[in-house]
């Protein structure tokens, strides 16, 4: 576990040296938020209904955009062999990558959320921290599955598209309950402890994490 943290720290250090992925993800989510604004009249009540879904999709697509490069970056720079021969187990590599991706997503979430509130002129009925907690929980879901899949598709042509096509069906049980939970909090102002979807998401993420850790040794072997 300590080794995973060291690995995540290394990746974050490299990322903050040039901030390539972060800038890209931020610009992407900003542009999507702007264009979504024209999908409906910004001052109408309709927007109130669809806004939680829009917020979640911006985060999801920006996140998958960043996650798709997790392991391909290592392949391109030729460091994947070094990573494999390092005295650390494959599962620790995966956990390290998940921690790194999650950190990046949380940074994007913290930047995007206020931007969303301002651009959409949105007042949240429930607690802001509950909203952020649900967004983070959903992010954990797609980061776990996305990191695993991004290692799986190292040898595939059209990797960027392939990640979306493979990850989306596996992520549907996270994506939809997250939208429902966000709606409960943002529109109806429910407390986070009264939402049954949360248990479902947590259970599904645990299943996915267990499967990923069980199968990851087969992914990296060559």
């Amino acid at each position, binding site marked *: 576990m300590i080794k995973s943290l060291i690995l995540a720290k290394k990746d974050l250090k490299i990322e903050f040296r040039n901030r390539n992925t972060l800038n890209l993800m931020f610009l992407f989510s900003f542009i999507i938020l702007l264009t979504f604004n024209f999908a409906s009249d910004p001052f109408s009540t309709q927007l109130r209904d669809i806004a939680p879904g829009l917020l979640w999709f911006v985060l999801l697509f920006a996140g998958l955009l960043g996650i798709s490069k997790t392991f391909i970056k290592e392949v391109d720079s030729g460091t994947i062999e070094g990573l494999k021969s390092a005295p650390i187990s494959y599962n620790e590599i995966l956990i390290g990558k998940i921690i790194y991706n999650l950190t990046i997503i949380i940074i994007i979430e913290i930047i995007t959320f206020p931007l969303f509130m301002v651009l959409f002129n949105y007042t949240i009925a429930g607690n802001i921290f509950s909203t952020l907690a649900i967004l983070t929980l959903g992010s954990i879901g797609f980061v776990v599955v996305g990191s695993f899949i991004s290692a799986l598709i190292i040898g595939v042509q059209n990797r960027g598209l392939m990640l979306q*096509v*493979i990850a989306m069906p596996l992520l549907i049980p996270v994506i939809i309950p997250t939208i429902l939970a966000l709606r409960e909090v943002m529109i109806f102002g429910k407390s986070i402890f009264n939402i049954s979807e949360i248990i479902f998401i947590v259970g599904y993420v645990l299943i996915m994490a267990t499967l990923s850790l069980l199968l990851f040794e087969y992914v990296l072997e060559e």
Partner: protein
Amino acid sequence: MRVYIYLAFLYVIVLVGMYRALVVLGPLSTSLLRYAGDPMQHGYKIFFFTMPNAPVVYLSFLVVLISSIVYLKTRDSKWDILAASSAKIGIIFTTILLVSGAIFSNLAWGAYWNWDPRQTTTLFLWFILAAYLSLRSAIDNPQSKARTSAILGIFGFVGVPLAHISATIWTSNHPQLYDKVSGAGFKLGNQELITFILMVMGTIMIYLYLIWITFRIKKMEIYKNG
């Protein structure tokens, strides 16, 4: 020789099942499904062509799961071929299930697609199989293809329990044969039950037959290409 006996058996089962579904329960029959407040009249008969596809879809996922696990353990390429054939045939049956399910949905609930949890989760199964097949077609190296798709095949199975429990954990209009809570699910009489069981058996046999053919064709292709 064994194959012909098998084929003959298959034909008999399928023909008898279809005959019963079409004629015994036909417009002339006095026997009707005891489905409270049935607005569908004879439309319910599509049940006998829709429902038997569901166990086959689950079965094809199970075959993909098991042969993927065995492949990862033994690295014998025939298990990979079996998984690929099962996915290929499975996606056909999932498509049939979705289309005929949509017809049932239109008859029973007034819309071809009304986002019933059962319908939606079945569509996810279709997407998982489509992702599995497109992943296979995107990798050239046979070993790498087999290993990668085996891992996805194991992952993809999570959709099956989800599709199965979807109608009970979320609000659903989908009829259930074993509704323990309210007893409001419809019950099959003897006539319908025999027809139903025959149709399920026949559809499973069509699946087994198709998978056997696909398996052999794929094996021959590999033999031809060296």
